[in-house]
C-alpha cells in the first residue's frame, strides 16, 4: 500500500509554525512600497558589498594602492607626451589636464558602480543570473547593484586632482553657465561610461569571449576619451565622436570651458550636448541589454 510520506505533523513543528503564522499570516502580501522601500533591497546588498571590502583592511589598502598606481601611470603617459611637444591636437598640457580629468573622473566613477556589468560571463558561469531571476527586482537593477568596487575611489581621486589642477591653471570665465556645463558634463560623462559597461554586458550574452570585443569599446573608449579628439582620424571621430560618444565626456565640454573652436566634424558648441550623448548611450545600452536578455531566455531576437 502507498503510505503518504508526510509523517504526522510534529507537535513542536506545528507550535513553531503557528507562532510564525500568527506573527505574519501565511499569505504572501504584495508589498505596497514607496521609493525608499523600493531601494531597500539594493541598499542592503550594496552596504554588505562595501562592508565586506572594508573588512579586509590590508587587502583593501593594497587594492587602493594598485588602483592609484595604474591611474597615475596613465596620467604620466599624458605628461610624457608633453615632454616632447608643447601642444597636442591644439591643446597645451594644462588644457589636456582638464580633458583627462573630466574623462577619467567620469570613467572612474562609472567603473566604481557599473564596472562589473561587463563581466557578465562570470555571472553566467556562476549561475548568478538565474538567481537574479528568482528575486522580485528588475534583472539589470540587480546586476548593477550586486557589486561596488570601492578601490576605484583611488583612481577617481587621480582624475579629480587632474581636473581641479586643470581648472585652476586654465583661464576659465567662471560664469554660472560654465558651472552648469561642468557639472552636467561630468554627470553625463559618468552616464555615458556607465552605459558602455551595460551595453558590454548585454552584448556578452551573445558573444562567445565577448569581453575581448567589448573591451575594445570600453577600454579603448576610455583611452580615446582622455585624448583630444582633434588628433583622431576621421573614421575614429565618427566612432568615438558619435556612435560611442567619448568626445562628449572630456574633450568637447573642455573646449567650451576654454572657449576654443572644435576641429572638423566636432564643432565646439557640441560641448553643451553631453546630456544628449548620455541619453543616446543609454538607449543603445538598454537596447543591447534587452537583446541580450531575450537571447538568454531564448525568446528569439
Amino acid at each position, binding site marked *: 500500500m*502507498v503510505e503518504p*510520506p*508526510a509523517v504526522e505533523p510534529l507537535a513542536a513543528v506545528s507550535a513553531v509554525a503557528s507562532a510564525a503564522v500568527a506573527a505574519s499570516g*501565511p499569505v504572501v502580501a504584495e508589498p505596497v512600497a514607496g521609493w525608499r522601500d523600493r531601494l531597500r*533591497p539594493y*541598499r542592503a546588498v550594496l552596504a554588505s558589498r562595501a562592508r565586506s571590502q572594508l573588512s579586509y583592511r590590508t587587502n583593501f589598502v593594497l587594492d587602493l594602492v594598485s588602483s592609484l598606481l595604474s591611474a597615475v601611470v596613465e596620467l604620466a603617459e599624458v605628461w610624457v607626451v608633453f615632454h616632447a611637444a608643447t601642444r597636442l591636437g591644439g591643446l597645451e598640457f594644462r588644457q589636456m589636464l582638464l580633458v583627462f580629468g573630466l574623462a577619467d573622473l567620469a570613467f572612474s566613477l562609472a567603473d566604481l558602480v557599473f564596472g562589473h556589468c561587463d563581466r557578465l560571463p562570470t555571472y553566467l558561469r556562476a549561475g548568478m543570473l538565474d538567481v537574479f531571476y*528568482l528575486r522580485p527586482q528588475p534583472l539589470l537593477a540587480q546586476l548593477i547593484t550586486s557589486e561596488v568596487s570601492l578601490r576605484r575611489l583611488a583612481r577617481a581621486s587621480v582624475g579629480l586632482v587632474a581636473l581641479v589642477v586643470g581648472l585652476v591653471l586654465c583661464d576659465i570665465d567662471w560664469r554660472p553657465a560654465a558651472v552648469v556645463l561642468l557639472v552636467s558634463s561630468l554627470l553625463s560623462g559618468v552616464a555615458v561610461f556607465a552605459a558602455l559597461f551595460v551595453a558590454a554586458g548585454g552584448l556578452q550574452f551573445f558573444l562567445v569571449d565577448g569581453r575581448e570585443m567589448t573591451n575594445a569599446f570600453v577600454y579603448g573608449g576610455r583611452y580615446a576619451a582622455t585624448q583630444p579628439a582633434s588628433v583622431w582620424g576621421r573614421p575614429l571621430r565618427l566612432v568615438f565622436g558619435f556612435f560611442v560618444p567619448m568626445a562628449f565626456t572630456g574633450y568637447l565640454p573642455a573646449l567650451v570651458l576654454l572657449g576654443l573652436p572644435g576641429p572638423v566634424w566636432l564643432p565646439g558648441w557640441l560641448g553643451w550636448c553631453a546630456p544628449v550623448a548620455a541619453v543616446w548611450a543609454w538607449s543603445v545600452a538598454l537596447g543591447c541589454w534587452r537583446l541580450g536578455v531575450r537571447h538568454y*531566455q*531564448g525568446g528569439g531576437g
Partner: protein
Amino acid sequence: MSAEGLLPRARGSAEVPAATGETVVETVGLTRRFTVREGVRRRQVSAVEDLTVRIGAGEAVGYIGANGAGKSTTIKMLAGILVPTAGTVRTCGLRPVKDRRRLARQIGVVFGQRSQLWWDLPVWESLRILAAIHALPAARRRARTDELVERLEMAEFWSVPVRQLSLGQRMRAEIAAALLHSPRLVILDEPTIGLDVLSKQRLREFLVEERAAYGTTLLLTTHDMGDVARLCERVLVIDHGRLAFDGALAGLAGAAGADRVLVVDLAEPAADLEVAGVVAARHLGSEGRGLRQRLAFDAEATTAARVLAAVSALVEVVDFRVEEPDIEDVVRRLYAATRHPPDAPAARRS
C-alpha cells in the same frame, strides 16, 4: 486566491493530504527546443516536448529523469527564466516570464549547483539581505528566521561565512534562503546531491515538516530514489523531454521494477534462496556457487530487515548490503516497458 483555484484537479489524488484543489503548476503542451550549432549547420534539439502536467496545491512531486532529460529546462520555464518554444505554462496562476517579479514572491527555488547566498558573508547576513529583497516586515522576518534556524539546526554555523560551510550546512542555508519568504511553491533541483546520509535525512525531515505545517507544494528533481520515496507521493518521469510516467511511486515500481535489492554474502555455498513464502522478496541471482545472492524486494511491502531475517533463518549470513534502485535504471526500464508492452516485460536485474 485566484480564479485558477476553482479549476477542477486533473487527478483524483485522495492520497494528497494538504491539497486544497487549487492548481499551482499547470503546463499544456509545453515545449522547448534549442538550436545547436555543429560547425555551420544548425540543428534543433528538443529539451522538453509536449509536456502537459497539473500540480495541485500541497502536492509533493518528484520529477525524475536521466541527465539531460529536460528537468532543468522545465524548471527554468516554470520560474520564468526560459521562454517556451510552444505551449503554455502557469505557475501559481501567473505567466512566469511576463509576471516574473510577482511570481518571485511566491516561489522558492533551490538549484543544487548554484548559490543564492553571498560567499563572503555570514549566513545570518545573507538571510538579512534576502529578507530586504523580499521586503519582509521586521516582525515576520524575525519569526520566520527563528523558525528556520531552529528547524534546520543552523545555530551552530549562523555566524560562519558561507564559503567555510560544509556541503550539508550550505545546503541547509540554501534551503533557508529559498524558503525565507514562505513561498507557496518550492522547487528543489537535486537538493541532496553529494550529501551524507545523515544530512540527507535531516533535510528530508525538514521538507516533510514544512509541507505539513504550511501545505507548501514541493517539486523536486533528484537522482536519489530515497528522496522520492520519503518525500513524494507522486512521480513524474521525463525521458528525452517527454513525460514517460505520471503517478504514484508504487505504480512506478510496478511499471519499471523499482525494487530495492538485498545482497547477502553467505558463510557457505548454498542453493538459490527461496523466501517468497515468508516475505515479499524474489531471488534475482547467485554468484560464486551461491556464496553471494541477490534478492529483490518491494520497499512498500516489506523491509530489508524482514528479508534479512527470513534469509538468516535459512543460512548463515556473513555480510550484506542494500542497493537502492538507480533512477537512470528505472527510467530505462520504464522506457523499455512502455515501448514493448506487455509480452516483452521490462528486463529485471539478473
